């Protein structure tokens, strides 16, 4: 039986009939409501916080109430639970107001004032006073020699903007103190990340903390690290109050104050000799916002991908994550790769144009093949199916024909088509799986023959409840209904690692498959038994050393080729997307409908990132469009012609050939979109989001 055959998802019905309980759906009997009070200053010292008289049963919670360390553990520990002495961005949480009536809590919140002493903020990553959080260098070959021998050297800068994850369910947490322990449950992707953070902030041993994931309404990375902050805040509040406390964000609050995709400024230099690129010298700058959070890891991935899917024997890459006094940037599907892939795809386009060669042919001449060295001296151990995928996408979209056709356009409506080709490194960067995560899964076979999956990965819509269960059911030759997978509870499941980095199916799914084989080998009917499986790094991996950025950064890669066709209305600047086609290789789909659904959703998010999703901040760094009415995400009307094709290149060490799938669909969309816009506007473009207004600016240049 083919594992890819689609099944009815295990959590389908409760989500359909409204019975699934998200964190905001739990009864609020006996629970206190909390609301956070945020800094209204970009950077300032707090002189005094003026709190109104609090009625009986109402309290405020701040840095002084943190029993453990006033730091949220996210890689490094610089994010405060509640602000210490200085606020570092508009939105830095200063305190929480807690009480039994929500409206009263809101009223008290509105009466709080703060005396600040203004400090000088930094809002631009190019500011010489900016703090550099992380600074990495790596390279290979002889870049300087290649540049000195080049026929021509190209230099260009590329920019990408902030992107808001816009999960439909806002952030929320409930903390309950009981029996000397604290239980926190809510909307989250990584129960053990939250567990570690709460234990540290509370000063509790691990056994006193319990974290439970509730049904989660989307994450996309936005609930990878941020929930740790909120969880610490509610835990501290509940501990002080001696009662359960819940915080559910409003949409405006969520959009304005939670983590978003890192904006970037990348400078690419390329040496060309005899019509081929012989070297690239790349400088990457990511805007990390006010605290480090995940910037180190995002930057690592971004710079590893900086030369794209192109063979580059001479490569120099410099990357910096820079502090600005803005909302701390964090994880979002793609995790640093979309920024550099956008830049390198546009760079290749522009060089091809200058050389007067067809961009697709130019790119094709540089694509890596199996056996080639990666940017970091690792190896593409497995086949690179991009050439076949290009043909698939060309056939579906008539790319080459349209590329030739849409030239010398003078009418009101002008068309363009673009294509990009990218990879996404599956799994954690480098030796993270082996050295930090050390994933463990368990299977519990009950006496009645049902089997429970015990893993800490969270179903956030991507279907893990179903796909994990399918793997176990398939291997044990059992009906799917007899496999159980509850939302993870750290009291009950081992740490199989976070739900990030497109690792869940590939790494944890494979552990479950092996555990199932183990369970089956010694199956005794009526026996109650638990088996455990631990991660081991595959033998073929060339060890990765972060200090030198050398080795296999990833065991394997998901690949994608995307084409997008646009029609620009030169009167209004608006672009209509006539079609979007994507071929995606994520190895064997564990469930075809689920995987296709992930590809379609991610592709549309990538299109939004390139076009209509724009975050505007004012001169103080305050985000001005913090609602769905003015942070524009695609609706059902925006891309009616979205086509996904699966190209299957099995990964031998993934379950049934599966590899990382979650992020790849987003990464290629921006390059394809902007290349299409370039053709429609007959201009070289180098930033996203590229809006109707930007289109008009280009057209104005043409007219005047």
């Amino acid at each position: 039986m083919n594992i890819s055959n689609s099944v009815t998802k295990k959590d389908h019905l409760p989500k359909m009939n409204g019975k699934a309980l998200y964190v905001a759906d739990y009864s609020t009997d006996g629970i206190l409501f909390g609301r956070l009070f945020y800094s209204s200053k970009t950077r300032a010292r707090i002189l005094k916080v003026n709190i109104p008289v609090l009625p009986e049963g109402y309290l405020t919670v701040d840095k002084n109430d943190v029993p453990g360390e006033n730091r949220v553990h996210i890689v490094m520990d610089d994010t405060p639970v509640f602000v210490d002495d200085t606020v570092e961005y508009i939105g830095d949480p200063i305190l929480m107001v807690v009480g039994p009536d929500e409206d009263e809590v809101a009223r008290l919140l509105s009466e709080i004032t703060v005396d600040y002493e203004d400090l000088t903020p930094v809002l631009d990553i190019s500011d010489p006073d900016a703090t550099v959080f992380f600074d990495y260098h790596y390279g290979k070959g002889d870049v300087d020699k290649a540049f000195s021998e080049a026929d021509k050297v190209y230099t260009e800068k590329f920019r990408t903007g902030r992107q808001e994850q816009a999960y439909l369910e806002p952030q929320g947490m409930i903390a309950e103190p009981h029996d000397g322990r604290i239980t926190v449950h809510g909307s989250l992707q990584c129960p053990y990340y939250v567990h570690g953070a709460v234990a540290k902030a509370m000063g509790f041993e691990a056994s006193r903390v319990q974290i439970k994931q509730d049904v989660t309404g989307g994450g996309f990375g936005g609930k990878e690290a941020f929930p740790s902050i909120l969880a610490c805040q509610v835990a501290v509040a509940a501990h002080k109050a001696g009662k359960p406390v819940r915080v559910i964000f409003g949409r405006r609050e969520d959009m304005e104050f939670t983590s978003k995709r890192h904006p970037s400024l990348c400078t690419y230099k390329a040496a060309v000799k005899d019509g081929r690129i012989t070297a690239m010298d790349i400088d990457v700058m990511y805007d990390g916002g006010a605290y480090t959070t995940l910037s180190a890891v995002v930057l690592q991935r971004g710079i590893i991908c900086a030369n794209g899917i192109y063979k580059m024997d001479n490569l120099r890459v410099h990357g910096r994550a820079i502090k600005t006094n803005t909302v701390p940037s964090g994880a979002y599907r793609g995790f640093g790769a979309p920024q550099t892939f956008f830049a390198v795809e546009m760079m290749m386009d522009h060089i091809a144009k200058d050389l007067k060669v067809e961009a697709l042919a130019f790119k094709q001449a540089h694509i890596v093949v199996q056996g080639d060295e990666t940017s970091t001296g690792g190896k593409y151990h497995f086949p690179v199916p991009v050439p076949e995928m290009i043909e698939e996408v060309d056939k579906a979209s008539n790319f080459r024909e349209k590329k030739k056709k849409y030239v010398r356009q003078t009418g009101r409506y002008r068309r363009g088509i673009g294509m990009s080709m990218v990879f996404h490194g599956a799994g954690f960067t480098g030796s993270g799986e082996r050295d930090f995560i050390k994933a463990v899964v368990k299977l519990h076979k009950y006496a009645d023959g049902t089997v429970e999956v015990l893993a800490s990965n969270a179903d956030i819509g991507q279907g893990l409840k179903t796909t994990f269960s399918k793997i176990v059911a398939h291997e044990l030759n059992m009906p799917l209904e007899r496999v159980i997978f509850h939302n993870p509870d750290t009291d009950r499941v081992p740490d199989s690692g976070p739900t990030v980095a497109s690792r869940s199916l590939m790494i944890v799914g494979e552990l479950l498959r092996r555990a199932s084989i183990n369970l089956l080998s010694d199956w005794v009917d009526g026996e109650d038994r638990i088996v455990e499986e631990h991660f081991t790094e595959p033998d073929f991996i060339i060890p990765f050393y972060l200090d030198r950025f050398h080795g296999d950064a990833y065991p394997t890669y998901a690949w994608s080729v995307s084409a997008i066709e646009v029609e620009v209305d030169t009167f209004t600047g608006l672009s209509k997307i006539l079609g979007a086609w994507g071929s995606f290789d994520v190895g064997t789909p564990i469930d075809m409908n689920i995987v296709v659904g992930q590809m379609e959703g991610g592709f549309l998010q990538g299109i939004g990132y390139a076009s209509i999703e724009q975050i505007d901040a004012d001169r103080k760094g305050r985000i001005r469009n913090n609602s769905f009415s003015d942070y524009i995400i695609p609706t059902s009307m925006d891309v009616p012609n979205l086509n996904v094709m699966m190209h299957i290149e099995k990964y031998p060490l993934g379950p049934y050939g599966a590899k990382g799938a979650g992020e790849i669909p987003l990464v290629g969309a921006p390059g394809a979109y902007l290349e299409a816009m370039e053709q429609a506007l007959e201009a070289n473009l180098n930033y996203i989001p590229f809006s109707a207004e930007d289109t008009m600016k280009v057209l104005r240049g043409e007219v005047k």
Partner: protein
Amino acid sequence: MNSNIIKFILNGNEVSYAGPAGARLLDVLREEFRLTGVKCGCSEGECGACAVIIDGMLANSCMVAMGRINGSHVMTIEGYAGTERFAALDKAYASVSAVQCGFCIPGMILASECILSKTPHPTEEQIRDGISGNLCRCTGYNAIVTAIMSASKEGNGLW
């Protein structure tokens, strides 16, 4: 006519509400009637997660004051879920795994009902227009559109 008690039909049952006429229907449904299938995604009538059906019309319950539904019929996903039409949509949505995180789904299902009750055999364009006020961040909308189309075909005279 002034009245402090608001009476309406909720999921087929006569109910009454004694609170302020200016309270949001969304809050009353979730908190007083514990109908948590009605979700709060934005509080501005932009996302459709709070959608209910009032007197046969799709409505964003966050944009409706209680006084407006005095004497009206209000249906939430909980009331709709027992119907044959729901069963047809359930089957259709399941067949293409159109439910991912699920937060948009109750509103999306009620929007599906409103499309099909007005136009039992809609074009794809009519379907897309009918759900244009229901934001989904997970699916890219294709599977949902396919599901509604398939329900209209398999629906066998239900609409």
